[in-house]
């Protein structure tokens, strides 16, 4: 049964930015898009272990801080070398000013 977990407050994430969220020994990345929507993915790049929360959000792309690997954080799709493996994404909802993510 997948649980909804409170990740952060809405105001914790700036527009077109990302923050790190640790839960249950796992690391996630919580994104706020330029059009004020929230998304969640695994927190580490699939290429090498780098925190995506240290990366750069541009439109619907998260760029890894280590090798500039790029993913679409809305779909998890890897956008080319040096990342070849897609990123796991998670459902997100906003309730009472809190960002909730559904973790399997």
């Amino acid at each position, binding site marked *: 049964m997948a649980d909804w977990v409170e990740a952060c407050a809405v105001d914790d994430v700036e527009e077109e*930015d990302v923050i790190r969220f640790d839960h249950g020994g796992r690391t996630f990345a919580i994104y706020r898009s330029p059009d004020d929507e929230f998304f969640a993915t695994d927190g580490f790049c699939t*290429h*090498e*272990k780098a925190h995506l929360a*240290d*990366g*750069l959000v*541009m439109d619907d792309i998260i*760029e890894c*801080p*280590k*090798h*500039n690997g*790029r993913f679409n954080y809305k779909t998890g799709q890897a*956008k080319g*070398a*040096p990342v*070849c493996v897609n990123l796991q994404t998670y459902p997100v909802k906003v309730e009472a000013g809190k960002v909730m993510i559904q973790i399997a």
Partner: protein
Amino acid sequence: MAGTMKRDYSLVGESTRRAIETGLASAEWYHTDVSRKAMKALMQRSDSPAIRDTIIWIGAILGSAAGGIYFWGTWWCVPFFFVYGVLYASASDSRWHECGHGTAFRTRWMNDVVYQIASFMLMRNPVTWRWSHARHHTDTIIVGRDAEIAVMRPPDLLRAVLAFTGILDFRYSLPTLVRNAFGNISPDERSFIPEMELPKVVTAARWHVAIYVATIAVALYMWSWLPLVLIGLPRLYGTWHMVLTGLLQHIGLADNVIDHRLNSRTVYMNPISRFIYWNMNYHVEHHMFPMVPYHALPRLHELIKHDLPEPNPSMWHAYREVWPVLLKQLKYEDYFLKRELPPTAQPYRGEFHDVNISAAAE
């Protein structure tokens, strides 16, 4: 310690095994503390600086080529090809580098187009080198892991000097492209290129080889060296500036450490070299934060210089500093130049390094 055994620079040898075993491979590296707000501002992408610089670069290439062609057959073509060669074979290295990182332009396709053009100018397989450079950033100057160590230990000084002529690169790059074009990918290349990318290596090599074959055909048809002086041979006569600036990135400094302040060098340079080199003289800063575009590196340098070794004030100063180190490494390959940190810096954390600090030049 690293000093107790001979260095093996292959990517599938004893040093590779040892780097993996000791945790030097894919390690956690030191980073200067920078607030998220400041870093986010520094990482911001913009098309305009790179569009401006690319227009100047391409314009100067075309202008110098036109002059060289116009004066072909007279000594007046020499200064034009001098400029053309540097723009073709040296400035392309920094364009290849920045566009490979995807930081030069905000727009992805612009990075990709310039990356492909620059890769061709450099005789570099665009697929292979993208992966080798990723490895260079993961395992910077980790022996047995880093595919881009320019001067190995003990240093081959003749080789280092010949590098300025481009002969060695040419002798390596062209046969490599031909080998790749025939579908032959070496064990070293396979060690850092994922299996699924290997067909792209072959395809890219075939395109490059096809253009060189076409150039040779045109040269034969015209019965003139001119097409080859314009395409291909600049890799010989225009490489010197790339080597002059690029050698300083890591030469003579520590290897097998996980702190870019110990194995990379920042050097203040003149504005022309910085244009050609696209600010890669801020090399410690670049390695520590590869997301920061070339045009923001001077700002990053100002922000974190309190935590970095004092930069060399000039290329001349840097080469004068490194020359005695290279000479000493001929007899004692563990010797290296240890960069001193200012009192405001976080200290080096020796417990995370494999380097024999007692071997360092203070």
